[in-house]
């Protein structure tokens, strides 16, 4: 059975970009801020990667520029939503529209230029002896391992440290957190910016590894799928890992099935991830219809001290 490791490997490489974006989204939402700018931020991350890498040929500088650029978008979202108390949905939509436009504008010069990048791979020779696991896990690139480590670190951070509990408090009940002496604004700013940077890394990974040349709108809805995955993962970084790989698998399924020449037009195969997102969310909604929601309780609500309840 050669096909199972192949499918899993494809799921992992397709899901890693999603995973970064989901983790970023979880950081945002745990602090009580919806960030619907994921798609736009990923696009900016991707286009900046393309531009900077073609210029400098240096992975570190590229990553640094991506982090700065997308961190700045996060700052913008944070300023609008936290300081100015703007509607988070509209602000996120604005980031997506702006990011889509700006990335197309900036990317005109590098559109279609192949990016000659080789991401360092982690060779685990001792794993090769084990049949399936060896095929899957040896030779994964360094960012895949980084994303797996990041999910674990974030899980520990959110559920096992005092900071993480403060974060939960800020997302659930900001006025109580404020009374406890936690700075709600500082927590929110920090997590929105850090989360946006992770979304930028998602774009970076997408263009550096998954499909290494810039095409306008190349994320094709992955940012929105990532937002859906936050709900799917119940705001838990470890569940996000599996959710992202599941959707990564669906994504690459479209490619693979074309090779096997089923009698289905490729357009319908490409619809699978989008349709699956809706159906899975419906299933989750139906399954949890009588359960209390695990969503951060003040998600989407700006906090201001003068009007607390």
């Amino acid at each position, binding site marked *: 059975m050669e096909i199972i490791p192949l499918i899993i490997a494809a799921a992992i490489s397709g899901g890693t970009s999603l995973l970064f974006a989901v983790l970023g989204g979880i950081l945002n939402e745990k602090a009580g801020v919806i960030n619907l700018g994921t798609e736009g931020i990923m696009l900016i991350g991707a286009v900046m990667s393309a531009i900077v890498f073609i210029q400098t040929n240096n992975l570190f500088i590229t990553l640094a520029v991506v982090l700065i650029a997308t961190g700045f978008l996060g700052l913008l979202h944070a300023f609008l939503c936290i300081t100015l108390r703007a509607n988070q949905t509209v602000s996120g939509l604005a980031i997506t529209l702006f990011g889509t436009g700006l990335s197309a504008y900036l990317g*005109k010069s590098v559109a279609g230029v192949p990016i000659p990048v080789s991401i360092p791979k982690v060779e685990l020779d001792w794993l090769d002896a084990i049949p399936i696991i060896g095929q899957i896990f040896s030779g994964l690139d360094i960012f895949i391992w980084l994303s797996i480590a990041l999910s674990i670190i974030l899980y520990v951070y959110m559920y096992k440290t005092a900071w993480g509990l403060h974060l939960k408090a800020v997302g659930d009940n900001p006025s109580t957190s404020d009374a*406890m002496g*936690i700075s709600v604004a500082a927590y929110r700013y920090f997590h929105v910016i850090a989360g946006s940077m992770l979304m930028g890394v998602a774009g970076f990974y997408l263009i550096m590894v998954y499909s290494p040349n810039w095409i306008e709108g190349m994320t094709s809805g992955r940012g929105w799928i990532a937002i859906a995955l936050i709900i799917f993962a119940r705001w838990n970084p470890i569940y996000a890992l599996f959710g992202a790989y599941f959707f990564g698998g669906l994504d690459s399924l479209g490619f693979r099935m074309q090779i096997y020449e089923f009698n289905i037009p490729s357009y319908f195969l490409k619809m699978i991830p*989008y349709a699956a997102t809706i159906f899975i969310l419906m299933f989750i*909604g139906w399954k949890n219809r009588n359960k209390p929601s695990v969503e951060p309780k003040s998600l989407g609500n700006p906090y201001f001290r003068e009007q607390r309840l």
Partner: protein
Amino acid sequence: MSQKSSFEPLPVELKQDNKKLGNVPFRLEYDAHKKGGSWWVPIISIIVALMICAVFILFNGMNPITVYGKMLAGAFGSSFGISETIVKAIPLLLCGLGVAIAYKIAIWNIGAEGQFILGAIGATAVTIFLPNLPGALYIPVMMVVGFAAGAIWGLCTAIPRTYFQVNELISSLMLNYIALLLLDYLVYGPWRDPQGFNFPGTQEFTPYQLLASLGGTRLHFGLIFALAAVILFAFFLAKTRWGYELRLLGANPVAAKNAGINITKHILIVMMISGGLAGFAGAIEVSGVAGRLMYGISPGYGYTAIIVAWLAKLNPWGMIITSVFIGSLIVGGYSVQTIGLPSSFSNMLQGAILFCLIGGEMLSKFKLKKVD
């Protein structure tokens, strides 16, 4: 151990607000009840957005004033430009009305793009599957089917939302991608014109299937439909019981629920209208402008409509102005391509406008207050 901070006494920080500006005898105070901004907020936002994008133009090594001048001339400088601007404004206005009615009750429909495409597909399906209809019936049937197709696509968002608690933002966006793929499948596959030299589009419509043009320009009868939709929208929202219930639902869902308003029913109806208006716009576009269903029938009208609606603060009359304005940005965007700016420049400008608008609207809720 590190949780110790939670047991410390309340910080004195709470009282420090008045001192934050040092010796300045004023402080900024936020007033949540102040009606956010007035007519000048959108105008200032547009100016600020133009200035921000001017920076990017400078980076591109061009003179912003020349670029904006060129855009203005392209959009309004000739009768052709003006009619093109209005041709673009028609679908924007209809889609804008569609999303606005959903936003009125805080349903974040961003699926106007997909609903538009479905409307276009629906209207085209009439021409393909009913080739022997009496000529005069074509336009009404196409419009109705276009509206219905958009409404059904809207329901595909509303039903998961009402019965399965699926966030409508995500489902409506996913449906956009599905609609786009469906369009590609049809125009590259079964519906492609066999005599079309591989052009991804259907056969051209017969004269009966085309909307009448106004005065020999590219302007078409859809303009009348769009303006009628504005009047109906304004009337129903302001003067009917149903409109009142919608406004109540938008202002205070809890009070609306306690008053016995059936929220589920309202969401379903509103999403049908919202999708239907976008589908109607799609039907008008194929029969009034394109004359056939083809690849890329919508250059993002559904997304741009979000800005049209917000710029007008969801006011139907205001949307007439904002749709023409955004239409002029699109047409102006085409004309700056001749001097080397990509057409995506106008998308960037639209995003920047939306940013400045929401920022400005919230900023206008702050007021300077004298500290005693």
